[in-house]
């Protein structure tokens, strides 16, 4: 599926989030409110602002990992737009399978599963055969310079940088038109940062939309088409 450059892929409208800490007397920790932005096909939107401003929380809400208190997150999914906020678990899982991928800061290791299968999994979930999915995984791992001798080992014993490259390869292995990136390059050296930037550029040309957090200024200037300052969405402390 390809998308037109002016097509909205993700539309966030008046999104708000706070945490109610029931174990601490029900204290309410406001995080963000009034979050509104669009992401178009073929562009990368970077969330900026100091740590604690709620950048990661916004990404997690987009992915359905955090529950939004209010607002809308409409995602171009199949033939129409689907609101992630309030969507049934089945619907969120379907969005994750076919439309929206997520690369976290760290790989969540699955016991005993070899690196190449961890990477191939999203491609298989998207409907590719095991062979096709493994081929794609091998290409991604090659691109990210993960030595082939590691491909058939579970990543539990890999270094942080090696694990993160497995994580990134997994994130790029699906057919997702929207990718959410939470500091994917933080633990990578310059060569591999460049490899990730290159991957992103290629996917953008194919019409993919990115929303991400990149603290490294050099990476950020290379990937960002727009930077959205999250401090504009600071939730009122009076809440």
């Amino acid at each position: 599926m390809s998308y037109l450059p002016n097509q909205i892929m993700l539309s966030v409208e008046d999104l708000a989030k706070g945490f109610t800490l029931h174990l601490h007397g029900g204290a309410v920790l406001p995080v963000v409110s009034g979050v509104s932005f669009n992401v178009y096909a073929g562009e990368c939107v970077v969330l900026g602002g100091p740590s604690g401003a709620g950048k990661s929380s916004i990404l997690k809400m987009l992915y359905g990992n955090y529950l939004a208190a209010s607002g809308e997150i409409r995602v171009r999914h199949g033939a129409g737009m689907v609101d992630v906020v309030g969507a049934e678990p089945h619907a969120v899982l379907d969005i994750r399978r076919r439309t929206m991928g997520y690369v976290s800061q760290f790989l969540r290791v699955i016991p005993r599963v070899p690196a190449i299968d961890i990477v191939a999994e999203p491609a298989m979930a998207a409907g590719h055969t095991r062979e096709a999915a493994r081929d794609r995984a091998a290409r991604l791992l090659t691109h990210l310079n993960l030595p082939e001798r590691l491909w058939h080992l579970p990543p539990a014993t890999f270094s942080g940088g090696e694990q993160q490259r497995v994580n990134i390869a997994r994130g790029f292995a699906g057919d997702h038109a929207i990718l959410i990136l939470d500091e994917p390059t933080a633990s990578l050296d310059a060569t591999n940062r460049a490899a990730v930037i290159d991957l992103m550029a290629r996917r953008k040309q194919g019409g993919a939309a990115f929303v991400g957090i990149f603290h490294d200024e050099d990476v950020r200037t290379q990937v960002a088409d727009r930077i959205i300052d999250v401090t504009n969405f600071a939730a009122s402390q009076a809440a």
Partner: protein
Amino acid sequence: MSAEPNITPLLVATGLSKSYGRRMACEDVSLSIREGEVLAIVGESGSGKSTLLNLLAGRLDADSGQVHYRMRDGVTRDMGTLTEAERRVLMRTDWGFVHQDAAQGLRMNVSAGGNIGERLMAIGNRHYGDIRATAAHWLTRVEINADRIDDKPTAYSGGMRQRLQIARNLVTAPRLVFMDEPTGGLDVSVQARLLDLIRGLAADLGLAVILVTHDLAVARLLSHRIMVMKGGHVIETGLTDRVLDDPQAAYTQLLVSSVLAA
């Protein structure tokens, strides 16, 4: 491309309640599950999660409420109206039940091959060679060397017994498998292997699994959706990673924060 998943629920439970004397073990619980979906029911002991599993699987009679199941012929039936014979056939074919204690789910004095073959014979298979070949295939599938086919489960380790129990359940290609703390009581390294096996089989076979566990890490690894129970009530339900990473209910927050992060 894979076929579109069947979105009609396989099993729907409505308003299930069960009390033991004056104590409500399970009160007004409703849920549904689709093919290919893994639902984890989590809670501490006494939360009613095992009672609920037994109600769903027809191993206990509910005081009130219904369980509807879409049979292999596509007809959805009220489980309460099944004859005893129909229920037994269902349990032996389209359903599986994996007990925490493998001794409850296996015949300990019958060979491994016999344990697997018994379910095949119960649905009419008579050809000894075929049954034995299928049993050997399933032993391999659960990572047990086929040359152990004539050994009794008493000669197996705890982890092997549990894998044998899974093979016995899966040999008839059930669409729905109930699991009651399948990794409970096993060494950690053995648990990891079993979890990986269950995860792979559920995905490859497109099984629906209703899994009871007190272990949130097991729920995170295996399930798509989670249901948190306490005192016979459902406290919170949702997407597994959402419930574990952003728990809303006070009790879920307590449960999640009480686990040591490994």
